[in-house]
């Protein structure tokens, strides 16, 4: 319609193909091309989602059982003669009493017909190695239980736990399973008496790690992660934002600052293990920072997240319109006041998003920490940045490598917790952006 005049006035017999014919002829092909592209795009997205779903499905289906823990109810006679022979309730005596013997005696009372050493060993294996600790805590908290018989729910051993959760196939021939027929009978008897129960596994969130799967928890790793990340943020955020502010707003534009900018962009792409090697060589070997501590971990991770924060902060600063700066300068603010009172607050949502994404990356990092001794078995929950500690991804790595069957579900459960934190952090980044970002 735009250009009908010349076409209409042209002599009618003109055999030349009009533009519209050319367009029409290729139209079908071009539509098909678009449809193919759309289809490829959609199937790529679908495939990606499918893989994510399979991955999540696998982790969740393996890991959800770890949030329950099997307990066995055993009547325990808190014998004052063995626990407190002097009768004066001295905490020291109570702490050192033979609780393992007490647990064993209680089990023998529950199953009086089990005799002979090998059979009794099997009987004791029903209960976790952590049960004496459980009883000890109980006595320490409530000394009044002494001399009474109480039904106590004790943590079941790992093999019983696996059996109750259905992860050991009882149909297999006896030689092929870790649980023998005699133990099966004991467990079945306990079950019919209602002495076996699955409960929410609070220990998983309150215990440090352990070699016994049923006692292993992520509290130590969580505390380590917390100290490491808090210190990482404390170190990398001010330095990163400061560097970005200087480079973006104050530094002269010359060859040197260009070189620095290129280097920062490159650093963001350096494999994380390189930062671990750097940490080992510089922080541990030269400065003598103690190995395996959140302190050295945070120093390394701060180096790793710095480029991310600087790049994000510079982008955020750049998006603040010059009119803000000019207005501030115009009413008499000093350049520093302009930046800190006007530009920085407006850029902060973008900076925070960058920082959170950087921290989320640091949260999932294990490779650099391997180099600085954080791949360690640490039972005690760290109390500060100079205590030996490990972090969640490393804990997952260590558990994944453990031979005990019970660690399979714990590994997946720990992955779930880690993923949970990741999702929360990324969600926070998105929400911050949505809520505070200003468009100009």
């Amino acid at each position, binding site marked *: 319609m735009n250009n009908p005049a010349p076409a209409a006035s042209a002599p009618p017999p003109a055999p030349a193909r009009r533009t519209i014919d050319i367009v029409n002829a290729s139209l079908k092909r071009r539509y098909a091309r678009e449809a193919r592209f759309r289809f490829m795009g959609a199937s790529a997205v679908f495939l990606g989602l499918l893989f994510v779903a399979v991955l999540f499905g696998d982790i969740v289906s393996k890991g959800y059982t770890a949030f329950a823990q099997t307990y066995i109810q055993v009547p325990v006679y808190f014998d004052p003669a063995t626990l407190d022979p002097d009768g004066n309730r001295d905490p020291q005596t109570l*702490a*050192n009493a033979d609780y393992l013997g007490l647990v064993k005696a209680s089990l023998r009372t529950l199953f009086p017909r089990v005799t002979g050493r090998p059979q009794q*060993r099997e009987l004791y294996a029903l209960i976790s*190695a952590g049960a004496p*600790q459980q009883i000890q805590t109980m006595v320490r908290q409530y000394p009044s239980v002494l001399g009474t018989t109480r039904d106590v729910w004790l943590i079941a051993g790992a093999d019983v736990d696996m059996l109750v959760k259905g992860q*050991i*196939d009882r149909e*297999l021939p006896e*030689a*092929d*399973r*870790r649980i023998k027929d005699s133990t099966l009978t004991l467990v079945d008897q306990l079950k019919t008496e209602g002495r076996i129960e699955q409960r929410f596994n609070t220990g998983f969130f309150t215990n440090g790690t*352990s*070699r*016994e799967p049923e006692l292993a928890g992520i509290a130590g790793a969580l505390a380590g992660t917390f100290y490491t990340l808090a*210190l990482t943020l*404390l*170190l990398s*955020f*001010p*330095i990163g*934002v*400061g560097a970005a502010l200087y480079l973006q707003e104050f530094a002269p534009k010359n060859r040197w600052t260009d070189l620095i900018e290129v280097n920062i962009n490159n650093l963001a792409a350096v494999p994380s293990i390189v930062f671990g090697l750097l940490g080992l060589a510089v922080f541990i070997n030269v*400065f*003598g*920072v*103690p*190995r*395996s*501590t959140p*302190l050295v971990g945070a120093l390394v991770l701060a180096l790793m997240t710095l480029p991310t924060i600087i790049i994000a902060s510079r982008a955020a600063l750049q998006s603040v319109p010059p009119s803000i700066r000019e207005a501030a300068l115009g009413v008499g603010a000093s350049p520093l006041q302009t930046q800190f009172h006007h530009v920085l607050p407006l850029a902060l949502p973008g900076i925070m998003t960058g920082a959170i994404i950087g921290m989320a990356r640091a949260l999932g990092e294990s490779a650099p920490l391997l180099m600085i*001794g954080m*791949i*360690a*078995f*640490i*039972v*005690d929950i760290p109390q500060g*940045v*100079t205590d*030996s500690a490990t972090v969640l991804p490393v804990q997952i790595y*260590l558990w*994944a*490598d*453990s*031979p*005990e*069957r019970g660690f*399979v579900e714990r590994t997946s459960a720990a992955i779930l917790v880690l993923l949970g934190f990741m999702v929360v952090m990324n969600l926070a980044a998105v929400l911050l952006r949505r809520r505070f970002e200003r468009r100009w």
Partner: protein
Amino acid sequence: MNKTLLVTAMTLAAAALSAQAAARDAITIVGSSTVFPFSTAVAENFGRGGKFKTPKVESTGTGGGMKLFCGGTGVDHPDITNASRAMKASEFESCEKNGVKGITEVKIGYDGIVIAESKSGLDMTLTLKDIFTALAKDVPDASGKLIPNPNKTWKDVNPSLPDAKIEVLGPPPTSGTRDAFVELAMEGGCNAYPSIKDLKKTDEKKHKAVCQGVREDGAFIEAGENDNLIVQKLVANPKALGIFGYSFLEQNADKIRGVKVGGVAPEYDSIASGDYPISRSIYFYVKNAHVGTIPGIKEFVTEFTSDKAWGPDGYLADKGLIALPDAERKAEAQSAKALTPMEKPAK
């Protein structure tokens, strides 16, 4: 606000550095990932006793552990290192050079390396020679000349074996299990060829290269350090074999079984008696100079060498440790408790 943060961070760092100079109150253990499960089990039980803090156990590999251990004396350096082989003379020398004198060697037991297959697998019996012929990079042909390994199926290796593709999942070269496997199984098998055995006398380096070279054409699959993954893959693929430590076989006995090597199945008794050919001794080393400085080292050694830990019925046996014979265990325990310093190793 940034200023306050910065100042806080710097104060924290300074405080940390000064705190580090103070004495350490927990034992630090480094070393082999093979000994790691045993060392951590002892550490946990030791810590549960309540008198001392739970030792920190780092998994650094045997070589890495030795390097840290021999770095010197003082709170910055570890007190104990675990090893899946004996200390080398060169390592002993580097220890001495750095002032680490008086090292107690404690042999804790054996670790068997098993070749396993799925329960529904081919039910194979291998000899060391079969293992070498199937997995070596170069094998001698009929005339004794070395050629790149042409064997595709187990039947090519030995006519009595099933006609199935050779597919073995094993640890990567960084692993101590791999070192032990090539040393014990591959080298044992290659000496079954007289032509290669003679090579040792004339060209020891070449002999080692031939015997310990593992093929890289896809028949031997490096499955990473994660042995649980190998177990899963074996279950999914009944025709494949996997190589890992004995404790993984024990824990997964419902899914996989050990392949007999030289007619001997990998079982507790056969590894303990030495009949099973692919087994090695595992050790830990104590820095005597730290005893008395770092609290609890002596007690930790006592715990480790008590029968309730490393005995045949002890809790380490549950974790897959193959205990030493009674007499040897007793002698080791005695020398460990007395902290008898070791002699310089022969090689």
